[in-house]
């Protein structure tokens, strides 16, 4: 087998291995016991909902843009 053929075979084998791996159930790559840092309150995107909502309100009434601030359910009576 030529060197080019070996290279092609390696690529095919790698792709096939990847596809086979893809057929197995997706495993969490960060195990629950590895989430100590993520569970720390300082890692919350929204640690103080009342305060964060108020600041969103401050900007929304003074700026043209709105939405996609990380919260689902943001209604708006403004225009």
């Amino acid at each position, binding site marked *: 087998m030529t060197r080019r053929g070996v290279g092609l075979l390696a690529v095919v084998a790698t792709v096939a291995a990847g596809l086979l791996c893809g057929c197995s159930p997706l495993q969490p790559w*960060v195990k629950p016991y590895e989430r100590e840092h993520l569970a720390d309150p300082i890692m919350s*995107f929204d640690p103080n909902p009342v305060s964060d909502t108020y600041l969103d309100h*401050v900007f929304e009434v003074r*700026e043209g*843009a709105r*939405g996609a*601030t990380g919260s689902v359910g943001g209604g708006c*009576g*403004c225009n």
Partner: protein
Amino acid sequence: MRPRTVTAALFALTAASHAAVLPDDRADLLWHDWDGGGVTVQGPSILVRKSVTDSLSLAANYYVDMISSASVDVLSTASPYKETRKQGSLSADYLHGNTTYSLGYIESKEPDYVAKTGFFSISESMFGDLTTVSFGYTRGWDRVGEDLHQNGLVSTVWVGDADHRNWQASLSQILTRNLLLGVNFETDESDGYLQSPYRSARYVNPEGLVQTEPQVTPNTRTGNAGSLQLKYYLPWHAALDGNYRLYHDTWGILAHTVGAGYTQPVSTDWTLRGSVRYYRQNAATFYSDLFPFEDSQNFMSRDRELAQFHDLTLGVGASWLFHPGWPRWIEKGTLNLSYNRLHIAYDDFHNWLVGGPPGGVPLYAYDASVTQFFISFWY
């Protein structure tokens, strides 16, 4: 007076969630204060959230804005005013397996503006709680009025209605043991009376003098927003976060928002935070500070929220954690103080109160202080 936001985000599922659990049982009592641009806004916000069963959590919020306004817009076309906006809301979160269903209703009232908003969202935690996907829908109905002042009496004339439909999708993803990602998309569609009855357009009359006429904006508006958030845990027990948002709408506004924050616990009880936020937008296609002549366009506006401008916000905050011995059902509490300093500078909105010939009037800019003091309890 001018339309204001009714935000349902208090009760929202946030991109920060990374497990199918109900929100914490907590109560927050906040006092807010805005002072800038000739406007002061103060008031309380009270949020109480309680689980009534293992799978159902209820929340109620009451929010007040007490406004005293002598802004540049008010002084140029009307008299300073004071008014109060009150907002109340109720919501429920129901957890079933890895899915959380949320439902809520908000009502906001001020003398010349009434907004009613309902929202629903569904959130699913998957891949061993590595990923949370949320979808939401919000529907709003607004009634817009105008206060008329005659002989010392104020009467309100209702000038129109506005409808809002809003769709949201968000993804929260654990990337590594130290890194979180949030991705959010939102589409907002509004129709009806979408302008402020108090704002005017300025034009130059044939004699070369500046005069005003009522502004006219389109009666439909569709906006799309997408954002990315990242939060990283630093080895010395601190957190670094960053976010970017892109917004575009059919009125021609394109806006960028960039923010970053740093959270540092300095003891078991004290946590400090600093943040910076930068925002920039271009003007709506029908915005002009001074139109060349009367009725020069179908749509004309000098609403400065539609002008080209940028703002920069620097914020600091401190939080103190305590464990009260009484009453015993309170697990912990925090006392919090935050201060934000905001600078807004307009590129095409001039301060006509200063006076001067067209072309010689300075651009408008102002600074504002935003202070919050709040106490939170978990039980």
